[in-house]
């Protein structure tokens, strides 16, 4: 699927300013600034959590205190003062929401401004006959509205804020939370375990093909509020689900921290498609402001012939540190990673994946497209590990980088560890520059310079864009154009 006319129009209509740079005025119920055991207790109490979860959070917090912030990534940013962040901020609500009509109109207004002009806007507005996309909206740490729950309930699918799952499905949460990304995993995931505020929970029962795309929108709204959301998806035997996460944040001068954790558990013959479109505020053209996006995403293919696909379109954030990974434990399990990372101006992205092959006949595919413009630095960092028992395991990796201008950089850092004699590992990498010839050719046919750029870059990303669900592919194409604005000339 390539660029559409609609895309071109959209690109044209968007001004140089960050489109999502507005601040909503909703009274926040905010915890005092800084981090301590008391704050962890405050969050847990706010969420009315059971004792075991509080204990887990505290263990994570104490562990985190002993940890050191990682510095191996090729990103450069001023040291984060973790005591200068608000860890909890919930939009004030009168009482529990029974239906969408009760959602704060200002929150709905925010969605409107976001241009969630896909079907979700209608879905959120509760329009009859709106498309089959269920949206769980996370607005500054609290899930505001979960739609389509009833339709999902009929199939036995659970899709709700994780805080609610803690209350209503404690056994599932207790069994799987932290089972893929334990609190000891890394600095940011430990922090997340201690202070996560909300996120989505999905359970697809045995043999169920989820009847619609599940979708979550995250927004960071209050100033200096770190967003620490936690997503847990469990696909039971022979089930299927496609999940999309989209993100935007309003414009702020201070950098905002975002440290999410996503865990996927995939059983026998089950399949999860997880797609992300991330366009958080990247900072201005001088590199001021923007989101720090330090995310841990991991899928455990526990069952035989289970399958996971990570598809990501990363155009936002000032600094990105993200490696959606697959643990291919079940025999014949399949892991896929399709990524587009666009960096412009002073953005930095260090992103890639980890494919850990443990089971027999496991296979993985990595297709990474990195685009750098302005002064941006983009790094692909990927690990392919073949364990001793990974008989006949296969990996194929393709890393393509595209440079726009001569002040940006693209770097490819593949790590390969092979303990299996029968494994096959292939790695291809290319780096190219967008050529003046291509631009002129498009312009000579009537496209403006920026339209030409968007068209060429969309072509470069095509293999990955094709992997996105249809509704979001169009939005992603627009984003590609928008995020490269000002990179020409």
């Amino acid at each position, binding site marked *: 699927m390539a660029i559409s006319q609609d895309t071109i129009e959209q690109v044209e209509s968007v001004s140089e300013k960050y489109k999502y740079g507005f601040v909503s005025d909703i009274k926040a119920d905010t915890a005092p600034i800084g981090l301590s055991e008391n704050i962890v207790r405050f969050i847990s109490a706010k969420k009315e959590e059971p004792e075991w979860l509080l204990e887990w959070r505290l263990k994570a917090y104490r562990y985190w205190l002993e940890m050191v912030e990682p510095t191996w990534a090729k990103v450069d940013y001023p040291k984060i003062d973790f005591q200068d962040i608000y860890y909890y901020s919930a939009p004030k609500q009168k009482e529990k929401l029974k239906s969408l009509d009760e959602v704060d109109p200002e929150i709905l207004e925010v969605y409107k401004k976001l241009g969630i002009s896909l079907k979700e806007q209608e879905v959120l507005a509760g329009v009859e006959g709106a498309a089959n996309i269920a949206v769980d909206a996370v607005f500054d740490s609290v899930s505001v509205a979960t739609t389509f729950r009833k339709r999902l309930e009929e199939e036995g699918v659970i899709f709700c804020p994780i805080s609610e799952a803690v209350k209503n499905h404690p056994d599932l949460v207790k069994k799987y939370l932290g089972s893929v990304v334990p609190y000891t995993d890394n600095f940011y995931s430990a922090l997340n375990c201690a202070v996560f505020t909300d996120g989505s929970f999905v359970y697809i029962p045995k043999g169920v093909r989820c009847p619609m795309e599940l979708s979550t929108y995250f927004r960071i709204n209050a100033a200096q509020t770190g967003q620490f959301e936690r997503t847990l998806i469990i696909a039971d035997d022979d089930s299927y689900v496609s999940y999309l996460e989209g993100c935007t944040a309003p414009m702020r001068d201070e950098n905002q921290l975002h440290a999410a954790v996503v865990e996927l558990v995939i059983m026998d013959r089950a399949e999860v498609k997880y797609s992300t479109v991330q366009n958080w505020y990247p900072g201005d053209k001088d590199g001021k402001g923007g989101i720090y996006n330090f995310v841990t995403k991991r899928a455990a293919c526990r069952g035989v012939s289970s399958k996971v696909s990570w598809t990501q379109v990363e155009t936002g954030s000032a600094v990105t540190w993200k490696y959606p990974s697959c643990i291919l434990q079940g025999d014949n399990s399949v892991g896929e990673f399709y990524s587009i990372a666009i960096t412009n101006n002073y953005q930095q992205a260090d992103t890639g994946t980890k494919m850990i092959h443990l089971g027999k006949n496991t296979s993985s595919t990595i297709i990474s497209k990195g685009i750098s413009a302005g002064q941006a630095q983009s790094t692909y960092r990927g690990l392919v590990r073949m364990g001793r028992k990974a008989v006949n395991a296969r990996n194929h990796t393709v890393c393509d980088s595209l440079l726009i201008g001569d002040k940006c950089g693209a770097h490819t850092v593949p790590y390969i560890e092979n303990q299996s004699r029968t494994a096959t590992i292939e790695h291809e990498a290319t780096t190219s520059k967008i050529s003046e010839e291509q631009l002129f050719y498009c312009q000579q046919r009537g*496209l*403006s310079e920026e*339209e030409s750029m968007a068209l060429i870059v969309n072509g470069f990303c095509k293999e990955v864009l094709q992997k996105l669900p249809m509704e979001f592919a169009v939005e992603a194409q627009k984003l590609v154009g928008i995020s490269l604005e000002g990179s020409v000339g």
Partner: protein
Amino acid sequence: MLEIKNLHATVGGKKILKGINLTINPGEIHAVMGPNGAGKSTLSYVLSGRSGYDVTSGSVTYQGQNLLDMTPDVRASSGIFLAFQYPVEIPGVASATFLKTALNAQRRFRGEEELDAIQFLKLVRSKTKELGIKDDMLKRPVNVGFSGGEKKRNEVLQMALLEPTLMLLDETDSGLDIDALKVAADGVNRLRSPERSALIITHYQRLLDYIVPDFVHVLADGKIVKSGDKSLALELEEKGYADICAA
């Protein structure tokens, strides 16, 4: 339609065009011939607005407006089409998408309604049929893996679809076998009309057997040294450039 007066242009600081004077009226086909390095391609790039081709003096008026003030895309949307000597590959972008995007960009510029996918497909299929071009070309990425002949056919198809007012053909005949040459010529001839003009740049007389020009100009060392009718092309073929240029 097009009036070039005393046009001087440089490429990378080097003087290439040294005072071109040329007037093209509606409906006329002009051929520009000349030896290698005479400035033929430079002329086509200057007219289409490619960066790096700097006009140092002179003027170009197109449909009463100063052409040199327009950006390349505005020139294109105003009806100037350059058929490239070496058409450029755009990986991942299907030819059909490219064509539709270009056509709609031009229609939008002219204040016309854009075509939707179905209208576009109908239109483009009628053009491929007319020109005897296989539809599968539309699905393939622009010029990627195309043979020399296919690339030129693609240029002709684009031209047929965009229906320009002024066609610039930059050595469209180079590297073409006789069948492909006929397709290219056919494409131009189909577009011939009292309102439409063409500037055909070529080394050889051969193409002009199929696209019969009203005027033939000889370009040498950045200047038009001789002009005439179709017979001049034949004369060139017989005597070579050296004689004519020296004369």
